[in-house]
């Protein structure tokens, strides 16, 4: 099956250019410059209508709630919501029920994802058994199935556990993701340990100016550390809505935007965290945001005059690089994970219209820019709000 996508502006971390692309066997077979005729056989043509085509987004951080909390979200509803938001790959956290801390449960989730055939799942494993403080997980048996380990949601307060985790990240060559609360002091401690024992560290959803400064210094020293930021911490400050980490001050938010410009922040992670209305009332922290994450990022970028190439880098190439995936660019032989976007769309968002099973999102009524028209995973159209409405 060969698909030709025409009449598009290609935008990725490498630049913006008009073009056409040919997809074959789930991969980008050929990227054509727009000028000049394309003499090629194809089975299907998608006329991009002059809209922007970006590499599929890779979400470095989300909660799919499956298994165990299917009343909040299932893998299917989560992935469908993600596709609506332009995400083609998802790094899903391990705080399910049971907690994913063994190869059996991890393989089950991978199997479920491949049967659903929606997004690509990168399933995180817990770092310690049951997120506890007694035993590390069995890296030998888990590492063949994932290269991402994290106790996300539970901060690693004990130094000895952090040291073991960092050491294992070198020995088994994986990325250790940390959720740090208290943020700055724990990140600083982890950086000290990283300098001492080495390892591959990725700091989840940073939210404070001081944290950013500490990570900037660590990068200057040449340590292997990356970090991500969520759409909501970029978009708003001092909001009374419970999320972890909490909404910070306006200066913190400004610092995060500067951190993107000067390259200290490597990528985005939505921290999509669906909760039922009842759980939210009881104080569960988190925001359901797959479906508007791109528009939030893009709106902030527009307001601050940051280029679209940078946006694509943070949504696709950045996480791909960190995860060791050959993906995240519109380039020959790369997977045909693609998103067609209307960059001129502007409108109010309504969480009630979410596909996601939960609707916990405080930004209803906000005006955002940019809309996902179509999402393609490995050459197959998985979300289509474009041709279906023509």
């Amino acid at each position, binding site marked *: 099956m060969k698909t030709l996508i025409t009449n598009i502006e290609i935008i990725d971390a490498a630049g913006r250019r008009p073009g056409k692309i040919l997809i074959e066997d789930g991969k980008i077979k050929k990227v054509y410059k727009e000028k000049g005729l394309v003499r090629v056989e194809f089975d299907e043509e998608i006329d991009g209508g002059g809209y922007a085509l970006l590499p599929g987004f890779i979400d470095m951080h989300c*909660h799919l709630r499956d298994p165990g909390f299917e009343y909040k979200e299932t893998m299917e509803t989560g992935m469908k919501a993600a596709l609506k938001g332009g995400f083609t790959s998802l790094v899903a*956290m391990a*705080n399910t029920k049971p907690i994913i801390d063994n190869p059996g449960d991890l393989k089950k989730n991978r199997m479920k994802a491949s049967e659903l055939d929606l997004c690509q799942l990168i399933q995180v494993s817990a770092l310690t058994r049951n*997120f*506890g*403080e007694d035993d590390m997980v069995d890296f030998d048996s888990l590492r063949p199935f994932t290269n991402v380990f994290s106790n*996300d*949601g*539970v*901060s690693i*307060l*004990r*130094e000895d556990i952090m040291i073991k985790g960092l050491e294992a990240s070198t020995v088994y060559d994986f990325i250790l993701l940390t*959720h740090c*609360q*208290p*943020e700055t*002091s*724990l990140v600083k*401690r982890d950086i000290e340990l990283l300098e001492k024992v080495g390892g591959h560290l990725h700091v989840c959803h940073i939210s404070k100016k001081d944290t950013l400064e500490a990570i900037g210094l660590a990068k200057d020293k040449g340590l292997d550390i990356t970090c991500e930021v969520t759409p909501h911490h970029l978009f708003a400050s*001092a909001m*009374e*809505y*419970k999320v*972890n980490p*909490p909404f910070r001050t306006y200066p913190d938010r400004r610092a995060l935007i500067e951190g993107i410009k000067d390259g200290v922040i490597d990528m985005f992670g939505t*921290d999509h*965290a669906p909760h039922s209305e009842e759980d939210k*009332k*009881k*104080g569960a*922290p*988190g925001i359901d945001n797959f479906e508007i994450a791109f528009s939030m990022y893009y709106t902030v970028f527009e307001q601050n005059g940051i280029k679209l190439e940078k946006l694509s880098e943070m949504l696709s190439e950045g996480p791909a690089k960190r995860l060791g995936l050959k993906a995240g660019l519109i380039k020959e032989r790369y997977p045909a994970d693609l998103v067609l976007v209307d960059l001129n769309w502007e409108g109010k968002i309504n969480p009630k219209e979410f596909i996601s099973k939960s609707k916990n999102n405080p930004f209803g009524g906000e005006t955002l820019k940019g809309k996902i028209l179509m999402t393609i995973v490995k050459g197959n159209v998985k979300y289509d709000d474009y041709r279906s409405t023509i």
Partner: protein
Amino acid sequence: MLKGRHLIEPGDFQIEEIESIMELADNIITNPKGYSLVCKGKLLASLFYEPSTRTRFSFEAAMLRLGGEIIGFDDPNNSSVSKGESLGDTIRTIECYSDIAVIRHPREGTARLVSKFAKEMPIINAGDGGHEHPTQTLTDLLTIRKYKGGCDNHVVGVCGDLLFGRTIHSLVKTLNRYHGITFIFISPKELKMPENILSQLNPECYQETTNLDEVIGDLDILYMSRVQRERFVSEEEYLRLKDYYILDKKKMRKAKTDMIVMHPLPRVNEIATEVDDDPRAVYFKQAKCGMYVRMALIAKLLGVEEDND
């Protein structure tokens, strides 16, 4: 992880764990609504074997503001204790009903002892004799964090009864685990900081003096304490020493403009009431911090704020 743990003395928690409680307290302060139901359906047993209205109210208000409920007593004469029931039996029974317990007891070491009988129920020590009062320490730390931006790099003056003041001992031991803390201990010779505390400190990080006036200009934090009548052997000695170190407007003029004055309360006359309106006086704000930090502590020990996203 703090879920299911006991807090008998501040040393039971690592600094990172203490800081995680502080951060949660910060979050509760900025977004109290978000936490008003996190303990719904949970029960706190409040076991006060000696009266302490202030501490008890603080704990009970904390639990209620988290959406939880309370059972307990503040007069052991009205409970089975008066029938001669052992503490161990009381705790075992109470564990059948409640999710967490707060205990205050006049005898030193009681809280630790009691915690050994509780299988899964976290125990919080709300003061055991002259021994420890860890939630007062957490209160002090939160106050310092809130009004001085953090607990590192301060010159801390501690003034008053340093010999018997258990809140002071706990605070000094805990602050000593932070970075860049210098202590100045200000007391009459008779009420000096005891050797067992001093021996835990780096000699370069503290100095002792009998004169508050001379050192007040160097301080970032001044922690005042009451000269407690009940700690003295004789009434004469109490009367002789109690007014030794009184903080007034005149002394405050010599202090830094951003120094804060703390006091665990109740005060007698060691801080003149004329100081109360000084913006540097944060002792009445400390009480509010105390409730918030207890909310954070309860939430952490019950694990309702551990499983986040």
